[in-house]
């Protein structure tokens, strides 16, 4: 009988002791809390995600829309028919940019650092917001990313103010000392290549790009872009390339897409027609259909790079800005030739072939004719590295002169034209309805044929 009393007392005592320590159990040994994290632990993932954003999901869709790619199967065919719904592009918004994505990482870095340590985060934030606003128009920024501070339903800023904010971020990035390159990361690229990247020039390059976006709505845009372009990247080795690697999940998103979703996407018929005889074409496709995974293709290898912005894009911007600001054709042509040649040499075209090709380039006719020549060349050069910018160029200038897909469906695009924007993602509709509706009505709709402020139809 005594035995029982002992047992019971021990057990009861055990219970009392464990009750006191019960909350100690609620510590996650595998996930550190915020106070244990430094900036260097956040930068690599943020940078990887940002470069990935420009060529993964929405990069591919932009490529399909602008006919750099053709959908061959499954969802990719639907995208080519402009049947791009609210749950087709939400992954980028939710996991690439805002919710669990790169812009959120940039915000965390900017909030928790000062001076040089956060300068690169501001530069990358500008690049991510540039993609965001050019795809969706009015988007949350000034109230965004602060869910843990109680702002659970951010309002949408006008596209105009987002573009202003992008310029401000880039200016601050320069003045905070982005030249130091603290936090810089180039994936599987070499340390040597990383050292050569000029981050201050990159900031100017991005300023040039985002001024240029506004040529339809801001008369001074071209001049501002030109000023920035002249301070921007002066060679491809200075451009911020991100180099991917094997295994497949770490590979270039084009390669990875071909690997994970084989047979569903091919290089576009339109771009191939435009590039007939172009020495780059054999480096873009081996059989008129493949775009990745085949040896010899430049942009479709596991370790193909993605620049945040390229030297050749800067030179194309410079050429167009010279034309738009009344500069000489010779200056514009020189910039155009530099752009094309830099692109060709970068991807491995023989120098003699490149020279022969650029020597044949000419600018003539009206301003629109010259811009068409420049944008058509830019379209060929941005293939595989900046498809979203080609979509911006198309909406901004109408070039290249693409034909709407005759098989287009009207579900979210009643006029069945080449899309002018994306629908806001389903997740914003279901969680932030009031602000979502306000943004849609402020812009007169968000169907794919509704214009956004920056890119009115010509």
């Amino acid at each position: 009988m005594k035995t029982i009393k002992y047992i019971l007392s021990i057990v009861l005592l055990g219970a009392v002791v464990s009750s006191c320590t019960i909350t100690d159990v609620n510590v996650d040994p595998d996930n550190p809390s915020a106070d244990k994290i430094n900036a260097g632990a956040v930068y690599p993932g943020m940078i990887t995600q940002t470069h990935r954003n420009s060529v993964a999901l929405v990069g591919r869709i932009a490529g399909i829309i602008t006919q750099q790619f053709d959908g061959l199967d499954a969802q990719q065919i639907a995208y080519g028919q402009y049947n791009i719904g609210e749950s087709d592009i939400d992954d980028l918004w939710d996991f690439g940019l805002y919710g669990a994505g790169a812009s959120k990482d940039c915000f965390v870095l900017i909030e928790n650092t000062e001076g040089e340590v956060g300068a690169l985060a501001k530069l990358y934030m500008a690049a991510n917001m540039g993609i965001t606003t050019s795809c969706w128009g009015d988007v949350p920024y000034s109230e965004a990313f602060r869910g843990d501070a109680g702002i659970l339903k951010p309002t949408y800023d006008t596209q105009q103010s987002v573009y202003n904010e992008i310029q401000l971020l880039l200016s601050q990035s320069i003045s905070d000392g982005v030249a130091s390159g603290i936090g810089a990361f180039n994936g599987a690229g070499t340390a040597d290549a990383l050292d050569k990247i000029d981050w201050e020039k990159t900031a100017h390059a991005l300023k040039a790009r985002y001024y240029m976006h506004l040529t339809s709505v801001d008369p001074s845009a071209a001049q501002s872009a030109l000023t920035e372009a002249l301070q921007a990247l002066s060679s491809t080795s200075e451009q911020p390339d991100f180099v991917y690697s094997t295994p497949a999940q770490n590979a270039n998103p084009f390669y990875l897409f071909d690997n994970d979703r084989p047979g569903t996407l091919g290089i576009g018929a339109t771009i191939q027609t435009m590039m007939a005889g172009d020495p780059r074409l054999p480096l873009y496709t081996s059989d008129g259909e493949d775009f990745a995974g085949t040896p010899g293709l430049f942009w479709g290898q596991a370790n193909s790079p993605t620049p945040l912005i390229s030297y050749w894009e800067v030179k194309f911007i410079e050429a167009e800005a010279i034309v738009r600001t009344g500069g000489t054709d010779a200056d514009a042509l020189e910039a155009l030739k530099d752009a094309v040649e830099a692109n060709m040499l970068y991807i491995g075209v023989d120098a003699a072939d490149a020279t022969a090709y650029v020597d044949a380039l000419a600018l003539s006719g009206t301003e629109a004719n010259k811009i068409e020549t420049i944008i058509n060349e830019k379209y060929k050069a941005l293939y595989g590295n900046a498809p979203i910018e080609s979509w911006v160029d198309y909406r901004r200038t109408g070039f290249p002169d693409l034909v709407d897909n005759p098989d287009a469906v009207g579900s979210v695009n009643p006029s069945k034209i080449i899309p002018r924007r994306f629908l806001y993602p389903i997740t914003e509709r279901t969680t932030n309805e009031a602000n979502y509706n306000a943004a849609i009505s402020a812009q007169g709709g968000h169907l794919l044929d509704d214009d956004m402020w920056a890119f009115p139809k010509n």
Partner: protein
Amino acid sequence: MKTKFSGILTLLLALVVQLTFAQEKTISGAVSDESGLPLPGTTVLVKGTSSGTSTDFDGNYSIEAEIGDTLVFSFVGYSTQEIVVGASNTVNVTLTEDAESLEEVVITAQGIKAKPRALSYSIQSVDSGDITKAQETNVVSALSAKAAGVQVTTSSGSVGASANIRIRGNTSITRSNSPLFVVDGVPINNDSYSEDPTQTNNNSSLGGTDFSNRAIDMNSSDIESVNILKGIAATTLYGIRANNGVVLITTKKGKQGKTRVTLRTSASFSEINKGPDLQRTYAQGRHNPDGSGLQYRGPETFEGDSWGPLISDLEYDGDTSYPFHRNGALVPAGTGNGIAAQSYDNYNFFKTGDVFDVNLSASGGTDKVNYRASMGKLVQNGVAPNEEFIRKTFRIDLQAKLYEDLTLDASAQYSNSGGVRVQRGSNISGVMLGLLRNTPTFDMGNGKTGQAAADDPSSYFYDIPGSELPGHRSYRDGIYNNPYFTVSRNSNTDDVNRIIGKMGLTYNLNDWITLKTSASIDNWTDTRKIGFDIIDASFGNGRVINDVIQNQDVNWNALVTATKDLNENLGLTATIGYDGFYTKNNRQTVIGDGMTIPGFFNLSNVSTTQAQELTNRKKLIGAFVTATLSYNNMLFITPSFRNDWTSTLPVDENTFQTYSIGGSFIFSEILDSNFINYGKLRGSWGKSGNDAPVYGTLTNFGGTVASGDGFIQSVTFPAYGATSFERSGRAGNPDLVPETTKEFEVGIQLSMLDNRLKFDATYYDRETTDQIVPIDATPSSGFVEVFSNIGRVSNKGVELTLGGTPVRTDDFNWDIDVNFTTYENVVEELAEGLESYVLNGFSGTSSRAVEGESYGAIYGARYARNDEGTMLIDDAGYPLLATTDGVIGDPIPDFLMGINNTFSYKNLSLSVLLDIREGGDIWCGTCGILDYFGVSSETLLRDQTTTFPGIVQSTGAPNNQVVPYSDPTISESNNYWRRYGFGDVDEGNVYDASWFRLREVTLTYTLPSRLLKGTFIEGISVSAYGRNLYLSTDYPGVDPETNLTGDSNGIGLDYFNNPNTRSYGFDVKLNF
């Protein structure tokens, strides 16, 4: 193994024989009741020994005993008698009825025994016979259609597949809705873990294998009975852990008497019972882009469509070097070798599966010690080649009287289970995706079928000149796996070692106070190895995953129960106690990519690795008290209260109270009716709840996953030689409060016509508020999820059981038991601005919680409709797609009914279990995809025209345009099945999953004991049984008892799920 069994058997038999020879003299006699009728089956024991027997049909017995021994005669419902053996060799005994013991006791929460009449809630029992009858591997599956208020969905017919059990529907949106499993008074773990731990954003349950729920480690042969506690009043004493009900399992125990050895062997065979209908009329191919009609396009084009020409218009070209067919490539008839093109039956892939199950147990006891030991081995080969599940169990139970008032109760169980699984679902390396999408003109088995094709690499490999590696022979040249490749080259093994140990002490302080304490440890380790071989469709460079999950649950409790009659009329039973629960779970995963040696799934054979570790820990302490006050054994009232302290709630607010009050009134006591023998009214009200998920109050940093694109894999850091961390996409909430469920339950129980007709009805109404949900945060707020207390889910239902014996004669008996369940399970409220919450599923189609809709509502793309609900038609004459997704199906059935008939004639008995499900939708995602690729039989309509009913949107007039389903002069992407994108319109693929099925049939013959006289065998029974022998349903896919997302909260989704099976077999049971 078989030789080992026979060895042990011999040993045990020797023991029995030896006991039999220890004789002195033979006593015989007859046992009868007060009216002189014989009492067959009365136990007769020699006290203090293990020697005993029982009376035969005429109440006669004979036993060996010495003079001076005491014989103990016992029979349920009668007072036990002891008689000392004297000179006489004949001892006749009359037993008297014992009114008190006549009423059986039931085990309730915390192992407290109670009289059924005192219960204020419904409780349902399933006994051992009903559990083992159909030889289900998974004890949860064995409960299907056997209890009112219980819904069981076995994920598929894959071996060892998980089964999802819900008692009174679903209450919680994100927490588990699975009940607590308690074995002999201590909870055991019933978790299930889905596959690929790398797929953090794509829910991994959509594309892995059907891994088991851990209750599968229980051997059904060890189970004596299962009691199901449904309502809060029944489960109050388990507090937070039992919010979804309790499955109380009682194992078989040794009984005082002679040693009893039982050997049970069964063998059964299974085959797939249903799959979607496929067309075998049109060949692989497309509409010729030049508009000239249908064009054959073979596997070498990598194209997946079967929109090609009629197979009858094609023949082979005779090129024997062509890797995709032995007769060569297909060409138009008249241009080849004259051999007509053939089509193939893809279902030939499946073979007959089998199960062999052997169980051996030995039990017995003296008046001091009872024991039972058992071992079992089950080997199951699935219907897919190479699919296998093996379970080995060993269990020992011991009860010993240490002192006169102190009883020890100890048990130990070891099990080893696991096998070779096959992948399924949304997975190009799965079996069903490659199998069903396969074009009818491609012979997957290259001339062979089933196991033979799987064993022959020429079915899935072909030589590529100049390459060491072969090509992947599938209808898209390796874009999807050939199913034979999947089962032969890839590997999905699990190996679970589990030990459950328990020890308890019961002390009778005096004749009215009992003290009880117990502690248990349940430890399991699941070691998984997943391998994708080189040239696999998903991981062409090869991938190896080593995945180890370890789980430890520790439970302990102590309680004091007092039972006392306060005066002549008032009785009191009261219990006070506490319990504790600690669980820790650790999962370590290493993924290796880039293999060199094909088929060698070892981390030494990969070029890169990534690792991941996850740990969950939780502690819960509870203290409880309950009392039942009775008046005249006719009126009972039971209040109960429990307080929980849990580690997952915010530090200062970590307690939670569960309480209930219930009463019962035995109105038959005052009725004195000849018609109603027993009548009871009962009612109860209670409040319970659920705590927060582990770490739900914290926002931490985790390893960065660079994703943002659902089409491709994510980059998981460390990567590129760097580590990286990011703020979690899920915001923790330090202000979380527990979920709260309140329930009201009333019922009536009647027993009529000398207990030949029994009826029980229950109505319940429960509501759960403050649901803890990681709701979609507005992504632009910098989080994708935030834990919040939101929403309200209601459950209202009626449970009926009707049991009767329509025929009872000396030789023939017919018993019938019917259970009927109907319930409404509605999400009444979600958070403001939150339209729906995804329970599980795809970004396109999912099972969701949607305000005002049934729990688990199927959500996806739908047709555009006007305000009256009429479909809108576009100018071309085809239905328009709505611009937003919405609710397209209700997965909750209208009612479920199980009808169990048992016919017995002399030694023969036949039991037939019918299972009826009315209503409840399932999304046949498979169907939409098969339509898209032109392989479903529905697409045979491709040469037809139709007029879609509806209103033309632009004109408002009824649609009268005649349109072709498919126009071969334009791209096939414009046809009816493709114009809405991949997988068609989800709404068009939602089907009513009503069914009528013959779930179990068992025919048992027990050999008359006189035939066994003189042998060492005491009893033989032989059964033949069948499972799922007949199924009637309008559902076009696999058997509608299916669930892609397994034991998760998502319901009603079918996307290339593995098929279900029908099986039949026989079973032999020997008693020694």
